[in-house]
């Protein structure tokens, strides 16, 4: 018997809907009803009173986890390097930002923390201080049993100095508390039709080439699999025949399975932000992913 994926949903899937048609409890209900067992959140998003929620809010959080039988998976955070127009974070300040979110993630029961670092160039070279921020927090992450995992996100592909830099860091420090998160948007091989609540125009495609997809070959996942600790199952549009219009799930699932990945697949819908649309899109993706995993495990992949 092969090992199996764990299925979760990120509340980011419902952004725009969140706070307008959906409460935190509704999000739990929608997620649990898909059959998923994990919930991913944005720290400064779902946590009321971030970064210091009240004890009443914490009671609600644990009551919801218990009632809907969901496990906290990953908490997203940001290390906003350019704190003001004039002041860039020092290493000490950036490390403190990360520590703040590690404390909160631990308090809420999360085992993964995704920090989003800034970039310093047009080709997305990360804030050079990121190593300092992380290294100063490895002991804290270890104490909490949390893996800090920056995200490999389109338009950054797998074969890229940014990814090499993260891997070098893991090799150099030998840490178990830093790893890679892969956002499956990197495998997108057909153009997006919508972005946010808008139809994509030719003008938009010119400035945001990534809208057409950077089409990373799923086989490349095998090269970095040993460093990957979490997967955000980014998607945008699954039709009523369960066909994804942008992400080639069959080769992706095949690569993940052959790489022995057995962590979370956390649904991350990022399609048309039409109210209520995300709810059923996430349901479709959960069915599609489980169907493909089952087909793979039963040897029904070509």
């Amino acid at each position, binding site marked *: 018997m092969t090992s199996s994926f764990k299925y979760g949903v990120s509340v980011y899937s419902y952004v725009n809907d969140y706070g307008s048609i959906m409460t935190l409890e*509704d999000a739990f209900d929608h997620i649990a*009803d898909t059959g998923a067992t994990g919930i991913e959140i944005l720290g400064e998003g779902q946590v009321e009173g971030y970064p210091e929620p009240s004890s009443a809010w914490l009671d609600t959080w644990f009551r919801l986890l218990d009632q809907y039988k969901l496990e906290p998976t990953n908490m997203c955070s940001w290390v906003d390097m350019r704190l003001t127009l004039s002041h860039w974070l020092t290493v000490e300040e950036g490390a403190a930002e990360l520590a703040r979110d590690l404390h909160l993630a631990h308090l809420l029961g999360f085992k993964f923390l995704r920090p989003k670092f800034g970039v310093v160039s047009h080709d997305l070279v990360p804030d050079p201080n990121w190593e300092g921020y992380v290294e100063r927090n490895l002991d804290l992450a270890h104490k909490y049993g949390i893996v800090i995992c920056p995200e490999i996100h389109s338009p950054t592909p797998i074969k890229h100095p940014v990814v090499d830099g993260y891997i070098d860091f893991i090799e150099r420090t030998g840490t178990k508390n830093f790893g890679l998160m892969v956002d499956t948007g990197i495998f997108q091989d057909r153009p997006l039709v919508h972005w946010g609540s808008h139809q994509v125009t030719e003008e938009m495609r010119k400035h945001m080439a990534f809208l057409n997809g950077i089409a990373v070959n799923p086989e490349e996942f095998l090269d970095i699999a040993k460093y990957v600790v979490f997967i955000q199952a980014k998607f945008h549009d699954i039709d009523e025949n*369960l066909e994804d219009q942008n992400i080639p799930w069959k080769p992706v699932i095949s690569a993940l399975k052959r790489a022995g990945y057995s962590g979370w697949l956390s649904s991350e819908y990022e399609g048309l932000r039409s109210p209520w649309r995300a709810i*059923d899109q996430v*349901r479709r993706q959960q069915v599609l992913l489980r169907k493909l995993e089952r087909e793979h495990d039963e040897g029904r992949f070509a």
Partner: protein
Amino acid sequence: MLEHELIQSTGFRNFGPVGARQGFAIRVRIPNYHGTRLSLLEGFDVTVDGEYFDHEVNRLGIRDEVYTMAQMREETVARWSLTEWGEILVDKPGGLEPGVHKIQVVARIRYSYFPPDVHIFPMRAERFGTICIA
């Protein structure tokens, strides 16, 4: 909060033991603009992927109770409030396959202030819904 339309995305599910499902449930808002005694409901016709299930047979689940059509017709005390959801429970041995299904519902409600010959008002709704778990 409920979805704006009658048929909700969440709550479309099979019921009964896994491997021996008895049927499926569709979560709905109240098909009315105000809360209602259950006796004023005349049931729900359901069609899924073209297969028809009659309102005389389908049941209503609300809070922790399940009502047959006969029970609903005489239930003059229990009410369905405007902000609560209910579930239409449809018998179908084996349940529905995981995946996307076309759901059509005709919710039948009785308005005393409609003329006797059109006393039962049919509210129609349809959408795609997704069964997640076999």
